[in-house]
């Protein structure tokens, strides 16, 4: 391990050479918006919100999967990036049925907060209004495809932290959706351990505790990183 120095928004930053741009920025107190990234889970670079500009590279790079390099010159908040981020958020709102007013996660939603952060006062795309169902067959948790943004944080939490891999993605593109096991009702899943890590990881109201009503669902995404760190340091013997 060695240390490299780079600049982020003109600020000199040093980081381990195996760090990502996102980690380096966070350590330096520089905010980069993320949605599919969650500390404790592998990074997949899917949501594109953390795209940054790197001098000498003519395309935008996701901060969560890009390694730092010596002398790298990164910009995280240019007008171009601000514009793209707002478009990404608008597209997410247009793609499914995100009705904040009647959502379990209202007030505790990362998508809602990002809409505020990027200054989304309305959505310029036509709403798709897809007809999507909910899976309420599990006794403790519900899955509402209307609120899902396909970030796959639940899939990764289920696989990487719990080791169950009950959740996965079926289909491609706009038709993709989260399924349990081989696309069976969640309540009939033989692999689900009912641990609730998917509900902790979910950034929106897509996965929630049964019985939650509007604005009652509070996720705890930070608990996953806590669990992972505790295991790596062998803080518990189970």
């Amino acid at each position: 391990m060695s240390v490299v120095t780079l600049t982020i928004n003109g600020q000199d930053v040093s980081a381990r050479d195996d760090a990502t741009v996102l980690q380096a920025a966070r350590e330096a107190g520089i905010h980069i918006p993320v949605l599919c990234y969650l500390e404790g889970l592998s990074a997949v670079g899917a949501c594109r919100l953390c795209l940054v500009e790197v001098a000498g590279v003519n395309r935008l790079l996701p901060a969560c999967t890009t390694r730092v390099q010596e002398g790298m010159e990164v910009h995280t908040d240019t007008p171009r990036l601000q514009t793209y981020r707002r478009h990404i958020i608008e597209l997410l709102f247009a793609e499914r049925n995100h009705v904040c007013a009647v959502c379990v996660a209202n007030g505790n939603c990362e998508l809602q907060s990002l809409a505020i952060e990027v200054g989304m006062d309305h959505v310029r795309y036509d709403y798709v209004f897809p007809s999507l169902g909910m899976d309420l067959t599990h006794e403790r948790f519900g899955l509402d495809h209307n609120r899902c943004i396909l970030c796959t944080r639940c899939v990764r939490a289920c696989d990487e932290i719990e080791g169950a891999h009950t959740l996965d993605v079926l289909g491609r593109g706009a038709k993709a959706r989260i399924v349990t096991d081989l696309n069976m009702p969640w309540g009939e899943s033989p692999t689900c351990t009912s641990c609730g890590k998917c509900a902790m990881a979910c950034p929106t109201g897509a996965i929630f505790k049964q019985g939650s009503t509007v604005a009652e669902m509070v996720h705890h995404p930070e608990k996953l990183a806590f669990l992972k760190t505790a295991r790596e340091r062998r803080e518990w013997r189970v």
Partner: protein
Amino acid sequence: MEKIKLATVWLGGCSGCHMSFLDLDEWLFDLAAAVEVVYSPIADLKHFPERVDVTLIEGAVANEEHLELVHTIRARSRLVVSFGDCAVTGNVTAMRNVIGNSAEAVLDRAYRELPTHNPRIPDEAGIVPPLLERVLPVHAVIPVDVFLPGCPPPAPRIRAVLQALIEGKTPEMIGREMLKFG
């Protein structure tokens, strides 16, 4: 100084935005000193007037009456404000769009499939305005100048927007206090 002509309109919504507007409490006296309310569901005026300065539109565009009215509003208003989540996003009013993607499918569901007695679609021509196939946010039909989200928008947010408009400024829609949906 001539008073600003203010209109408020209630389309496909629950009137909660207007309720929140009334939550402005004693500031309504200050508002009354600065504006003349020329059209509103809380004033008994039958026709949308000419030369309105600011129109707040609550609700989504859900039927043919709404559709006609928003075009009239745009033609006769200097500034149009999408007032609340239904106007801005379609919100709860637009949740019916997921049912079969047509007005007929929605009416079938509500009046034929679900009732236990006398399933029948109401069709009093000239009285009940026909539903549009899809509920639309206001800006999908006419250009909108200011978006005031919230379900309902909290009274202080409404006040901040109206205060700016009265002073001839563009409201600063920035941050959680001004922009949070829901």
